């Protein structure tokens, strides 16, 4: 086959126009010859004899007239053993090896194969001569870290093939032939341990897609308890700058109970990736006793790296995620930030002079985002095993306004929404997930009834808080005030979590259940106080105990002691007569709701503040001197 060639005729940033002869495929990869470099590019539009290409590198210094070679292939990644623990750029170049070769700065046109070709893997065959196999079927296994890595028939061999020969057990590199297949026409097809797969084509070689019903434990309390995520599900984390998206994702990458985490640092700060690269080899994952880096792949196209490659970085990441799902593993893909990916599309669309949609984003934004998230899922594989890809995407809305196109398009496709709010992050209430705005369609650690009760409490407390701003503390009944303080306690010692504390930073699901039951009891306990100051003192003290408690490792002596402190303090304020018949939170909420309804209707009747206080007094206010 003769390869198509072309000549550069126009340059506009990363977009070039190429006059070609022969045939060119949409999304085909091409190389622009510049000085002694070959700059990788991708066809994004074809019109007559002209193709528009986006170059994955800086086009500085390029001249019109430069030669272009079309490769015939689509933008692809290499799949095989040895991806884990690596740091790749958006095109799957290993950045460590690039650094070893070129030093501090990235050099254009330098590409290195992602998998190390001299490393040997201990191969154990599972298929034998005479078997009939097709793409995705296992022919042997190797051990990658603590995983059994299946060596499979390349995904693109979709038809059935006869196995002619499989190599003996032994140590082989990824370039050595481990099997020989034969297609229908008798053509022999050698198979190695790695193969290429186009990044924009979803891998669908599973038996069926299952509903995401099993919880993915993140060990972040507010998520696991209130806004859970499922294996195979999707969620997004939008929030204004500095609200804590990246910290939350880093935390999730560390603590989430999955087999593999793929971090796609897409158009964000390089420094943040560096923290991960340097930190993860040092952290030993308690559940596997291995450094965290062994279960992690980082795909990194940070903000000052070429914009075109930013777009492909999320596809590079998801393709590797699908590959490991095919091994029967649970994979979590964290993309920070999908807005930068959308912006890369916007830049390209602008240079192509396409008709823009809202805020100059391309009109196809919504469908591209939906297609991406749809590559998630829990699946049953052909061999009966299960694997999943869960996607969590950070979103960086312009101006922190969730009405903007990327947030809206994302919200339409995800199963959980963790909305970070500026108010909460300003008040250092981390993680700044706003419990009143966020939602999740997945099943979590506590019962739906408890969940909905907590939402009611938080919502009511928020109303009381708002009300208190208008009528003052003295205009608030003691019962309402207590509801408010209870919600605050729940927020401060349970929903908030100190990311930088070794113990508090990650709470196991068992400990969550335990602490939750204690707190839930407190919320459900009727307490008596002489006045608001006493109530506030009590809750301050309670908070103090819990904050200490949260930082004590489970099983330590101090842990049980603290728990006793908490119970003792609580009992001091439960009237003796009440200890047996506990008034539940739901009743208190109903009463408080009724009260507020009553007051609102009275207010609507035009009563001034003085009368209002009488109404409250008639109710159950303790304030003697309004």
């Amino acid at each position, binding site marked *: 086959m003769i390869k198509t060639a072309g000549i550069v*005729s*126009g*340059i*506009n940033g990363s977009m070039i*126009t190429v006059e070609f002869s022969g045939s060119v495929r949409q999304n085909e990869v091409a190389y622009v010859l510049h000085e002694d470099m070959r700059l990788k590019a991708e066809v994004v539009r074809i019109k007559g004899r002209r193709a528009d290409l986006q170059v994955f590198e800086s086009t*500085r*210094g*390029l*001249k*019109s*007239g430069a030669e272009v070679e079309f490769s015939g292939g689509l933008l692809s990644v290499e799949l095989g053993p040895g991806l884990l623990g690596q*740091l790749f750029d958006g095109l799957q170049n290993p*950045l460590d090896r*690039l*650094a070893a070769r070129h*030093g*501090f*700065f*990235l*050099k*254009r046109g330098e590409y290195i194969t992602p998998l190390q070709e001299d490393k040997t893997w201990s191969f154990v065959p599972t298929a034998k001569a005479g078997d009939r196999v097709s793409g995705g079927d296992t022919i042997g296994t190797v051990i990658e870290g603590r995983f059994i890595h299946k060596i499979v028939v390349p995904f693109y061999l979709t038809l059935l093939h006869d196995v002619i020969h499989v190599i003996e057990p032994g140590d082989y590199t990824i370039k050595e032939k481990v099997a020989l297949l034969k297609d229908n026409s008798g053509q022999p097809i050698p198979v190695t341990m790695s193969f290429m797969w186009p990044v924009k084509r979803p891998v669908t070689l599973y038996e069926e897609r299952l509903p995401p019903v099993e919880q993915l434990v993140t060990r972040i309390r507010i998520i696991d308890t209130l806004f859970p995520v499922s294996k195979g599900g999707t969620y997004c984390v939008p929030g*204004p*700058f*500095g609200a804590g998206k990246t910290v939350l994702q880093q935390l999730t990458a560390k603590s989430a109970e999955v087999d593999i985490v793929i971090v796609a640092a897409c*158009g964000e*700060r*390089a*420094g943040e*990736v*560096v*923290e991960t690269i*340097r*930190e993860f080899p040092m952290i030993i994952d308690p559940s596997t006793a291995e450094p965290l880096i062994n279960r992690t792949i980082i795909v990194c196209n*940070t*903000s*000052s790296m070429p*914009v075109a490659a930013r777009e492909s970085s999320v596809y590079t990441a998801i393709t590797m995620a699908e590959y490991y799902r095919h091994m029967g593993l649970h994979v979590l893909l964290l993309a920070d930030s999908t807005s930068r990916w959308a*912006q890369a599309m*916007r*830049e390209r669309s*602008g240079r192509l002079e396409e008709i823009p949609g809202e*805020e*100059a*984003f391309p009109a196809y934004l919504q469908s591209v985002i939906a297609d991406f998230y749809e590559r998630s899922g829990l699946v049953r594989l052909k061999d009966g095993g299960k694997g999943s890809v869960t996607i969590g995407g950070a979103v960086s809305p*312009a*101006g922190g306004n969730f009405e903007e196109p990327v947030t809206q398009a994302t919200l339409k496709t995800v199963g959980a929404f963790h909305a970070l709010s500026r108010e909460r992050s*300003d*008040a250092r209430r981390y993680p700044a997930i706003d419990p009143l705005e966020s939602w999740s369609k997945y099943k979590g650690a506590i019962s739906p009834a408890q969940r909905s009760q907590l939402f009611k409490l938080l919502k009511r407390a928020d109303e009381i808080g708002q009300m208190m*701003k*208008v009528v*003052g*503390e*003295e205009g608030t009944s003691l019962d309402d005030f207590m509801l408010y303080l209870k919600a605050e306690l729940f927020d401060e010692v349970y929903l908030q979590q100190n990311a*930088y504390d070794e113990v508090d930073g990650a709470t196991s699901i068992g400990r969550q259940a335990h602490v939750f039951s204690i707190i839930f009891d407190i919320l459900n306990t009727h307490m008596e106080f002489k006045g*608001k*100051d006493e109530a*506030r003192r009590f809750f*301050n003290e309670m908070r*103090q105990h819990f*904050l200490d408690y949260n930082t004590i490792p489970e099983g330590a002596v101090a842990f049980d002691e603290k728990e006793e402190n908490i119970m003792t303090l609580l009992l001091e304020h439960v009237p003796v007569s009440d200890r047996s018949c506990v008034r539940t939170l739901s009743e208190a909420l109903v009463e408080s709701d009724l009260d507020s309804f009553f007051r609102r209707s009275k207010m609507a009747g035009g009563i001034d503040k003085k009368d209002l206080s009488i109404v409250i007094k008639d109710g159950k206010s303790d304030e003697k001197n309004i």
Partner: protein
Amino acid sequence: MKKIYNRILQISGNIIAVRASGIKYGELAIVKTSQGKTFAEVIRINASDEIFLQVFAGGSGISTGDEVYFLGRHMGIPFSENLLGRIFTATGEPRDGGPHLTEALTEISGPAVNPAKRIVPTNMIHTGIPMIDIFNSLVESQKISIFTTSGEPYNELVVRIALQAKVDAIVVGGMGIRYDDYLFIKDSIEKGGAFGRCVLFIHTASDPVVECLIAADISLAVAERFALEGKKVLVLLTDMTNFCDALKEIAVVMEQIPSNRGYPGDLYSQLAVRYEKAVSFEGAGSITILSVTTMPGNDVTHPVPDNTGYITEGQYYLNNGRIEPFGSLSRLKQLVNKDTRADHRPLMTSMIQLYAFYRETMEKRAMGFRMSQWDEKLLKYGNLFEAGIMDLSVNIALYEALDMGWRILAECFTPEETGLRSELIKTYWPDICKA
């Protein structure tokens, strides 16, 4: 032999077009007009060899018959130690009457640093300003911006930090600044005795708009060279809003579809390319970037502060002559404040939370509500905090500032009201005035 083009096809705003072949993308050209020579840079090459150039001195006064010739190279700056103690225009012309530099050119806008070669920063830059040192520590290799409005003393703050910081070189990139501000910066650095380790690239409000963009790139290119030679460099960029407005102006002329309030869709990437120059090189020096972003209408959701906030590693909110505790953020602080003193982090959190309560109480009081005992305590606290910690005239070292924090807490609250863990209270709570 250089080829001269003397048929300018199009002049629109600061952009001109000529027909020429064999031209490099981003190449520098000279345009000879009746007013003199100016640089221009290739920003687009169209099919049929139409070359678009952005003219540094602006399009005004250019005639279709003016001469254009290409230099075959990119914009650069002669680099050597001799830059220190000098003042230049945005394009590298001496502004101080000193000699022209003749050393080999360093190209501006070089490639990005390989993330694998970056190191996690660990050095705190002490400023003597408690609102920075305690609450939002500045870290070597950080990129951080001062969010403020015109009229605030932001240049004073920037220069004060620069003089206090223990760095080897200071590079000042002035963009669209008033002449008075330029003189102020220059004089303060001289008075502070730092001029010898400083180089200034100044673009004033009356200079051509396009040069505003060059000022940032040239400053960063110089900083990068110093850093590679092992120097700790601090780059001051004031005012990045002018830089963004210059981008907007050029985008409009190029008929790019604006994304938000007229700003181009690649504003984020454009800012990122500059700010990401902040780095710590393994085995060499570092670049720290402190910039100023004036917020039109004091609106943080305006595209300029918004995109800046998304790329910098935090911001200091300068409002009413003080650094606001809310909204201000140093994202790298946790890398350094763990190694200062055990009470640093918890004290910082607790003092901020209490200050937030104080603000709420102030609101309540303004609405005429009765102040509870707790409110009274908060009011006292707020006043002491503002006078002893927040006031910009306070200039004390970090540990002193932390001790001051404990004293203020002890004067106002009982230990358990502070939300601080018991063991810290045991170690640090001052005995002087048990509440």
